């Protein structure tokens, strides 16, 4: 590629860019926007939901989305360093939630649950975090490290196998029945501020998720371990040459991702208090979708993608579909969520914040 070649190519580049495919894509984007805007206009102008109900839907979306974000962080970080999707991550989340269930159940029989709910909650969170971290690190050691250097498809398939293995292992251990989290009295009821009425449990979830995400961001940006993680994700070979222990860094990546998933599991139990061995599957898929939505490999992207997906799921059916008088539109929330993914990718093929990785290497 010489300098002359690029200079010559520039005048004709703009003319050759308008291909039938690009016309079609632009047509698709405009059509999608039109459908969404018109549906939203119909929904809002019909006055079916009051402003406070729209706000409620938004808050529900943000709280579920925060949980998705926490799980998505694990997906995106592992993709960043190892360039494959760890499908077993949903089960890491489920194990965190299961541990949270057992600890919460045990604590609920003691007076600590009632006297000091904050400490109880912290105990539940910490145990969930520790368990999930342990499981994530174990999976990395058993399933992924032996495959370091293999073509990328191999660890992907292994991760699917690991996901099923863990699911049915847990099913064998705890049984297939649905477990119910114990109620936490201080978390029932609502907070009121500035005219907003929000459920307490959702406030806890949103705040906890925000705090964890902030901590993770600071960890990755400001600490040495975070720096080595970013180095390994940019170029593992050069990082090794610079004296970074790539293996240990990868283990730390899995550990941090697992910890986030553990917190997500405990928070999930607060908002959706029924759990079984299969509960990690759908949030795992949604979190993976969130990570792609925000730009896979990008940590802030994962946070943004998670919250966005939660909002699309929650508000989408009522906003866009209800306007077109589709019956039982609430049942189509998953359709809306995944369509949102497709639409975002149509507009921005690398996700909202784009892929913040260095040049792709084979």
């Amino acid at each position, binding site marked *: 590629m010489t300098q002359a070649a690029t200079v010559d190519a520039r005048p004709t580049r703009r003319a050759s860019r308008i291909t039938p495919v690009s016309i079609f894509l632009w047509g698709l984007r405009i059509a999608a926007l039109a459908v969404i805007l018109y549906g939203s206009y119909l929904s809002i102008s019909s006055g*079916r*939901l*009051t402003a*406070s*109900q729209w706000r*409620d*839907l938004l808050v*529900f*979306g943000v709280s*579920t989305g925060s949980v998705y974000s926490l799980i998505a962080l694990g997906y995106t970080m592992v993709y960043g360093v190892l360039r494959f999707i760890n499908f077993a991550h949903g089960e890491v989340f489920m194990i965190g939630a299961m541990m949270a269930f057992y600890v919460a159940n045990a604590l609920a029989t003691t007076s600590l649950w009632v006297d000091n709910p904050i400490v109880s909650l912290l105990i539940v969170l910490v145990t969930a975090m520790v368990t999930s971290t342990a499981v994530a690190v174990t999976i990395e050691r058993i399933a992924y490290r032996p495959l370091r250097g293999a073509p990328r498809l191999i660890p992907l398939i292994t991760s699917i196998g690991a996901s099923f293995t863990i699911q049915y292992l847990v099913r064998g251990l705890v049984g*297939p*029945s*649905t477990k*119910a989290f114990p*109620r936490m009295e201080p978390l*029932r009821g609502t907070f009121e501020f500035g005219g907003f*009425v929000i*459920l307490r449990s959702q406030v806890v979830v949103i705040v906890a998720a925000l705090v964890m995400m902030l901590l993770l961001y600071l960890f990755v940006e400001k600490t040495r371990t975070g720096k080595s993680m970013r180095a390994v994700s940019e170029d593992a070979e050069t990082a090794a040459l610079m004296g970074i222990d790539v293996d240990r860094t990868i283990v730390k990546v899995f550990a941090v991702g697992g910890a986030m998933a553990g917190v997500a599991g405990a928070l999930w139990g607060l*908002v*959706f*208090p*029924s759990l*079984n061995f*299969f*509960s990690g599957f*759908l949030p795992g898929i949604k979190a993976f979708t969130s990570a792609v939505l925000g730009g896979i490999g990008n940590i802030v992207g994962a946070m943004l993608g998670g919250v966005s997906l939660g909002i699309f*799921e*929650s*508000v989408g*059916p*009522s906003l866009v579909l*209800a306007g077109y008088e589709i*019956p*039982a*539109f*609430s*049942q189509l*929330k*998953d359709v809306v969520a995944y369509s949102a993914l497709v639409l975002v990718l149509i507009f921005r093929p690398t996700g909202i914040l784009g892929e913040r990785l260095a040049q792709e290497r084979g």
Partner: protein
Amino acid sequence: MKTKRGLKLLALLAVLTLVIAACGGGEGGEDTTTTAGTDEPTTTAGGDEPTTTAGGGTTMPAGDLGVVEVAAGEAIKIGSLQSISGDTASLGTDQVRATEIAIADKGEILGHPIELAFNEDDTCGAEGGQAGATRIIADPQVVAVIGTSCSGAGVPASNVVTSAGRVLVSGSNTSPVLTSDLAGNEGPEHHPGYFRTAHNDAIQGAAAAKFVFEELGLTQVATINDGDPYTQGLTSAFEFSFTELGGTVVLPTAVTADQTDMRPVLTEVAAAGAELIFFPIFQPAGDFLAEQALEVAGLEDVVLMGADGLLSDTYVVLPQTENMYFSGPQTPTGDAYDEFVGKYEAEYGEAPIQSFHAHSYDATNMVFAAIEAVATDDGGTLTIDLQALRDELHAMTWEGLTGTLSCDEYGDCAAPNIDILQNTADTADIAAVRGNVLATYSAEDLGF
């Protein structure tokens, strides 16, 4: 160049072959001879074209279903296809136990012991129903199948089992699509050879609607189903009857069975102004709905009502289900039923865990009685004509634990009574809830 042309020709040939295979040779009748121990078939099937009746069912010409021969000393085999794992495990396990008790009670038919040759899982869904049914009928000695638990599994299972000539008798399928709407219209998934001893949801929907409108005096109702044939059939029946009585269904909507966040749909319900939510779904979706309904703004006073899918011991103990109403089949009474419960408790160490054990017990016994009536004994070898078995099930009347059973042309055998129950602070377990009957409606009460 030559190899490229050759490959193209080959590819074209392959596609053509596939197209011909797919489009040609698809006849309606299947080979259903099921003799054992002989090499030549005793009857031919597929020679007569099955006639199609309006509504989608097909009738096979009489006598063309073949026979099952049970040699001397061999057991008469039946199969069980129930939901024995997962969240609906209580529904299926309860009925498998009832079938086992029926087998133990009957002992033998015409000198032959009875064997439960298959105990398959219908996973409360179409995949399990299809797979389980296929596995059972692969054994040509199976005479009848008791199942399925869930109507969603019953849809493919009814087709598979009856196409193979055997009968499928369910103790808990309630969806109208499997039989009829009780107004003379055949259900779209009805196949001859399918019977059930449980009620038809056209009746349960009407009973629930009548209770809500007349007893509770509520006129604005939202219904939520989960897309499954049972839940959809029940909410449709409820909506139809409720509107006929003069009420308004303000929001007929649905969720998916694995949904956890019910708050958006509940916000819509609140916006529609519902006084009661009728959600005849299963666990765990029912758990989330009940839990979140009382948290959503605008639904603080809403009344919750479920149906027999939620009448299990793991649901009624949840604190969020307190004061919920349920509709379900009437729990049988009488000495015969008490004796049955006694055997159940002695064998399995606990009281019956769901609502359809007696119905399955009756279903199994009906099949036994029908076999006894039609089987011909020839020096120890029983010959059971499968078409005669179907005709007998249609013709007979059976006095069971759940009442007098007499099967109509579409397979509904029950003379059902529907109980409306309530879960209160005093009812500690499923048995207490089932005992807390607020109203009972019979088919006559509801105009059927």
